[in-house]
């Protein structure tokens, strides 16, 4: 189960505005999914290491050699708002 407050908190962390309806649906659906997901709670995982990568690669490093950057016009061309060759952002304060 996941309560209303947790749904609101998680939505804020994820920067998602949920309508009141969505909030209710989300709480129901997440709770439903979590009841299935909770099968992992019962397992004995003593001494089992986590898997973060399935491939055994290490030290994939790049030489410190410059590659061409984008022309600013191209870097900015998909931006919804451009201010003085920079990416516009609404009021922050």
């Amino acid at each position, binding site marked *: 189960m996941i309560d209303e407050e947790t749904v609101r*908190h998680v939505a*804020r*962390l994820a*920067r998602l505005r949920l309508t009141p309806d969505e909030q209710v649906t989300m709480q129901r659906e997440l709770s439903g999914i979590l009841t299935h997901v909770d099968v992992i709670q019962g397992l004995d995982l003593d001494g089992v290491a986590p898997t*973060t*990568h399935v*491939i055994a*690669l*290490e*030290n*994939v*490093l*790049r*030489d*410190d*050699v*410059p*590659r*061409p*950057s*984008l022309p*600013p016009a191209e*870097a*900015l061309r998909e931006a919804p708002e451009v*201010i*003085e*060759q*920079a*990416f*516009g*952002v*609404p*009021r*922050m*304060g």
Partner: protein
Amino acid sequence: MSALEPVIGVEIHVQLRTRTKMFCGCELSFGDPPNTHTCPVCLAHPGVLPVTNREAVRLALEIGLALGCEIAPRSIFHRKNYFYPDLPKAYQISQYDVPLCGRGRFTAVAEDGREIPVGITRVHLEEDAAKLMHLGGSGRRAGAERSAVDFNRGGTPLVEIVTEPDLTSAADVAVFLRQLRQTLLFLGVSDCNMEEGSMRADANVSVRPAGSTALGTKTELKNMNSFRFLERGITAEVERQRATIAAGGRVVQETVHFEPETGEIHPLRSKEEAHDYRYLPEPDLVPVAPDPAWVDGLRAGLPELPQALRARWVGEMGLSHEDADVLTESPELAAYFAAVAAEADPKAAANWVRGELRAQLRERGEEPWQGNVTPARLAALLGLLADGTLSVPGAKEALAEVIATGEEPAAVVARRGLGQISDEGELTALVDRLLAEHAAQADQLRSGKDKVLGFFVGQAMKATQGRADPGAVSRLVRERALGG
């Protein structure tokens, strides 16, 4: 209630001096027009992936080694998640539970020779955020109508150095940071330019009853762009915490900002109401497991660091801790001094390099190692001073000439006739003339007014443009006036 003592730990972010960014091939820059050093990777376009810069790893390893850290056999990157416009992926690639370097120690030495040992918790690699520009209003975030992001700086390789809470005063923090900066400069890993933001320090400050070992609630003093402000900020924050507790209040864990203009401390509104970075292992990068042979090679190749130089200079040359500290301000200055001290009296060398040389060069905007005064020339000048050829004023004048012309000091002295007059006959004639010209003062001298001796020495210097040997003049005035 027993006195409350400060407990301070610092976190230092240092931009590494690589050619390219941490995870993409964009060239590093400073001061270029906005968004001229960006690519799909550092703009976090959909589908891009990071690739780690080997040189950044190398520089971070050197820092770890210089700070006596253990190098992790295998370290990994994490994603640190938070939304902010200067963070294009909305996560910073950083290191979390397995940093590249851990558990080191750095011992700073105060001017009085007191050691300030500081535990290094970790040294880890991460990427810098982009630059925000605030438009309209005051030009600050608060009150700005809009803001805009320049990603040139975004993705610059950073090393974060975290200390244990081992520091107990703002002054010690300043000494520690200055000497840590010197070490980083000697390693050549960063410009460490605080004004330009290539070195930034945060301090975690708390207070506790003297003698206690428990830690009080800490506040984080953010983003101070000079050691002086940081020192003042810590002092102000310690006072604020003491006052809060004295008034029966409690310190709240929060981020605070120091206002240098007013000297006040203000809580800073946090980047996210609830700090929850939801660290997760970065699946797009594989572990960094530095080859032990590589690490050994880096360790062997480290330059002699300022801590070691200072200890050696204090021990072998008899320099004061203060002299040693100032002379290791930068690797260039230290090398310059070492070269002078190799051929001249070290203490005199220290005095002249710190004092007269830098004072004269400052007007020209030059550093000692840049201009005409090569270490050999300064050593030669100090030799002329030591053997009595030059008086101190003469030496200063000769130095000015060397700076201007690049001539050898001996040649300057000869050409300008700056050599000290020690000739007994010449000085005796001069003294006799002065005693005759200033009969009243001569009488005073004879009646026991020793102070007047200085007057005659001064007159002698004036008459010789400072070349008279003051000791000899003083002796001769007594001899000729008192007949003794």
